[in-house]
């Protein structure tokens, strides 16, 4: 049976390849997309993995030119005496001599954490002892500092032997688990109440679900610092002996940040369940509480779990919140940044990245292979017209009690951002001011952000939607692999894509780090999947027969695509554009590795000034950022209205 399956699979692949080869246009487009994906998604991620399995040693290379003709003589007269003194150098791991005809060198490799300058000075000092002996034979000495990379699992050994490192992994996982559990719990209550509770709650919940989409993802951490930080309103007014930095802060900030995501997903799940089964249970004498626990929750469980998985991924990849409000607690995503930024320890940063990816991959696999197809939706039959039932007080009041404090917290957070933006220094000098809005660096970063987000939003939909067309409609070999790699950029935490880009594009032939363009490429390829999804879902809605009709009328593949398909899926292009633009405006985690002076983005600038304690300015720029994003979306909406393109 297994052999049969494999043969059939091979047979299919062979057919696909044959079909593919007969179609040069398709081949060319697919090849271009594949190359782009390989270079800008697979290669950086692969580089991280390779880097994590290497260690680099500080090296000192000593070169000398000699007038002695025979190599053997050089060894006897110069090299051996040199090695003789150098082998006693402090921290030396190995010394290796190379050379031929006039130019020779000794490579000195020091211990991993050895200070290379000390190594250099020690080398010079050692040599000076035998200077007189070798000088007659040597024309010139040159020294060079360097690094030597060696394949090794030493970084992993370090990771597990150093509590400072492995604690970051433990913390990240604990944080993700706690945040996920809380978010799914709260999101379920919000969604359930919004869907089945009184109508007036619905609008408020929707707004709450959508606003954070255009706000920088760490805005709640910022607000929480204003509320419960060392100089926070509550801390000061109530003379609290503690502040919110650390675990309570990060967890609270994450719960509020990811609540909308969980809410939107779980609401969708509950909605798609329909009321049919609940009606049936009610008909079978079940009380409302019974229905909730015996029917609704079990049925929604796979969908809730799915939402939970996504929240888990977002939480573990979260950068801004731990950065701002994490206090002294270490987390993988942010510590990978610090390892690179302050220690230039890319190897350990790469190991951190691997441990960032592993949980994500495990979750992704669970999602793909266990949860897929286990989502219950109402099967068959039209949705019945049914009156919204009054919610039982036994459910309504407990849920309201759960939802209310969190809602107040959210409103309070938004309020604090406003108060902070218009106050000189909160709790120190509470006078009104507009000065926080007058930051020229802030304005400049906003303009950069606009350029950045706009450019990325032009690239991602074109590649994503074209790819979706090929994946959905065309017969190409190894489709799943192409799809998987395209989605990888999104599935992998931003920190990983950041570190990956630094490792991959820091050397020729693709030395791109430090340029504005690499930031844009990074953003575009990280968000490919949304355009891809938008394209496929649109294509699945369009009957293939429409394209077949075009071909039947004599249109070629290109004409069919450009004149029939493209107009039909233009809304997917626009949706991809809008989404990429929005997330580009508030991007943090990957681009923070790629920014250079002069190319600072608004979201990163906010993060930077907030870290330096200029909270008022951070609030003010946050508000400006939200306004700019909202205004851009408004403009788009107006354009779409006049051009009659469907956008939202």
């Amino acid at each position: 049976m297994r052999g049969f399956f494999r043969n059939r699979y091979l047979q299919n692949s062979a057919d696909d390849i044959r079909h593919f080869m007969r179609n040069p246009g398709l081949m060319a487009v697919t090849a271009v997309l594949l190359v782009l994906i390989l270079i800008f998604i697979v290669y950086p991620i692969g580089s991280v993995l390779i880097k994590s399995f290497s260690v680099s040693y500080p090296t000192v290379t000593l070169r000398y030119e000699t007038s002695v003709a025979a190599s053997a003589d050089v060894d006897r007269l110069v090299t051996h005496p040199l090695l003789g003194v150098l082998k006693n150098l402090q921290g030396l791991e190995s010394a290796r001599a190379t050379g031929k005809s006039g130019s020779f060198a000794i490579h000195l490799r020091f211990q991993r954490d050895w200070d290379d300058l000390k190594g250099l000075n020690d080398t010079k000092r050692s040599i000076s002892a035998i200077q007189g002996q070798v000088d007659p034979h040597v024309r010139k000495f040159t020294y060079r500092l360097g690094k030597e990379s060696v394949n090794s699992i030493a970084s992993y050994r370090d990771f597990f032997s150093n509590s400072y490192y492995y604690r970051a992994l433990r913390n990240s996982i604990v944080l993700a688990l706690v945040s996920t559990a809380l978010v799914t719990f709260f999101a379920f209550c919000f969604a359930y109440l919004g869907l089945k509770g009184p109508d007036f709650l619905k609008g408020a919940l929707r707004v709450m679900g959508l606003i954070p989409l255009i706000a920088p993802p760490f805005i709640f951490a910022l607000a929480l610092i204003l509320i419960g930080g060392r100089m926070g309103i509550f801390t000061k007014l109530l003379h609290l002996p503690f502040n919110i930095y650390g675990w309570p802060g990060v967890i609270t900030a994450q719960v509020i940040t990811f609540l909308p995501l969980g809410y939107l997903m779980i609401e969708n799940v509950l909605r798609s369940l329909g009321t049919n089964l609940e009606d049936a249970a009610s008909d079978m004498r079940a009380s409302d509480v019974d229905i909730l626990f015996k029917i609704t929750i079990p049925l929604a469980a796979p969908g809730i779990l799915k939402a939970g998985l996504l929240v888990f991924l977002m939480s573990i990849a979260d950068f801004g919140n731990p950065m701002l409000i994490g206090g002294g607690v270490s987390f993988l995503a942010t510590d990978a940044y610090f390892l690179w930024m302050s220690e230039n320890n890319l190897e350990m940063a790469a190991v951190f990245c691997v441990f960032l990816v592993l949980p994500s991959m495990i979750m992704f696999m669970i999602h793909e292979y266990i949860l897929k197809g286990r989502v219950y939706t109402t099967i068959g039959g039209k949705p019945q017209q049914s009156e919204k039932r009054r919610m039982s007080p036994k459910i309504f009041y407990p849920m309201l009690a759960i939802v209310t404090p969190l809602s107040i917290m959210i409103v309070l957070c938004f309020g604090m951002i406003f108060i902070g933006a218009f106050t000189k220094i909160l709790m120190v000098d509470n006078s009104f001011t507009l000065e926080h809005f007058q930051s020229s660096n802030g304005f400049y970063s906003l303009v950069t952000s606009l350029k950045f987000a706009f450019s990325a939003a032009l690239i991602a939909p074109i590649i994503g939607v074209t790819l979706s067309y090929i994946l959905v409609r065309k017969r190409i070999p190894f489709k799943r692999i192409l799809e998987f790699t395209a989605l990888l950029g999104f599935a992998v935490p931003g920190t990983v894509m950041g570190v990956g880009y630094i490792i991959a594009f820091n050397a020729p032939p693709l030395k791109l780090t430090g340029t504005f363009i690499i930031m844009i490429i990074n953003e575009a390829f990280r968000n490919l999947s949304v355009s891809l999804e938008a394209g496929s879902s649109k294509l699945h809605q369009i009957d293939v027969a429409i394209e077949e009709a075009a071909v039947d009328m004599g249109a070629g593949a290109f004409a069919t695509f450009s004149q029939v398909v493209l107009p039909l899926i233009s809304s997917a292009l626009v949706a991809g554009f809008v989404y990429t633009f929005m997330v580009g405006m508030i991007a943090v985690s990957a681009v923070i590795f790629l920014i250079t002076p002069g190319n600072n983005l608004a979201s990163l600038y906010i993060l930077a000034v907030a870290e330096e304690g200029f909270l008022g300015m951070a609030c003010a720029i946050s508000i400006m950022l939200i306004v700019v994003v909202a205004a851009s979306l408004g403009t788009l909406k107006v354009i779409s209205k006049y051009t009659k393109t469907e956008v939202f």
Partner: protein
Amino acid sequence: MRDMADNGSPIILELQNITKRFGDLMAVNNISYALARGKLVTFVGPSGCGKTTLLRIVSGFIEPDEGRVILDGEDITRIRPNARDTAMVFQNYALFPHMTVARNIGFGLQMMKKPKNEVKNEVERLLDLVQLSGLGERKPHELSGGQQQRVALARALSLHPKILLLDEPLSNLDANLRVMMRTEIRKLQRRLDLSIIFVTHDQEEAMSISDLLVVMDQGVVKQVGSPTEVYEQPVDDFVANFVGHINFFPGEVTAFGREELILKIDQVDLKVQRPAFEVAPGDRLKAVVRPESIDIVDAQTSTGADQNVMEGQIEVAMYIGSVMRYTITAGDQTVYVDESDPQYQGIFQEGKAVKLILKKRIHLLKVQEA
């Protein structure tokens, strides 16, 4: 009258002036009706006629704007679905996909806090009743459509409801299974003496299964009657059309006696039994004739009297197996005729001149003013 339905059986359910609007749409418009115990009554009508809304008002999922629902003497209008003595079989069965068949069937009893043993025995009995013994541990998606249907039925029966509500229960089954299942439902209803409201849009299904039909259109009841009554003596064009193919012959009353009257259509005189309502010469009436009630013979055949005979020409002859369906032009009129057992009767070719004999079963309707 309060406790007895039209035919003398005690009443199980009474609907009093039920009205329900959805926005501007009048879904159910002032319907009053009393159902006899132990009968299978079918609400039938085109989609949007209000039949499902009415059913869901009985089950409690929709609250009527006006009117009362009285079940076995008790006003249940404001009682929630889970406290009503009704049980419903849903159109798509609404089986709980995360529970086994046995747990599905036992769910209602479990909710009523019956002891585990009792639930188990009852589930076994019900599985046996719907011929699903041994499938209790399966999940619903592991069953065929027909089996799922039986589970839904068993689940509803588990509550021993005073009235069983079936909402288009057969519409998701294929044609053969549908016929089989409706026979089974009918047998079960007779055996257990169940009171059932059955909702369907399929007139054939409705006719074949019911004791009584309630034909609905646009939120009102058009006609209540046995299948025969509704088919043979429809109260208006809508009902006549809805329950089968039909020919309308509008004409004028030219003469009438004690038993019969003459209706002149085109050039032909139709001798028909007098209807129950008052008629006078000169009245415009409509003869309503089912296609199978018209005989068709060769134009050369001598038919004796001219009365009740029309001449025409075969326009289309369609062979459907059990019947031959002819579309015939007779003067200005298009007439549909079904001839059963066509191989035996002989088939008329298209274009052939024929005579139509309208002798049997002619029903008269007043011409409705537009």
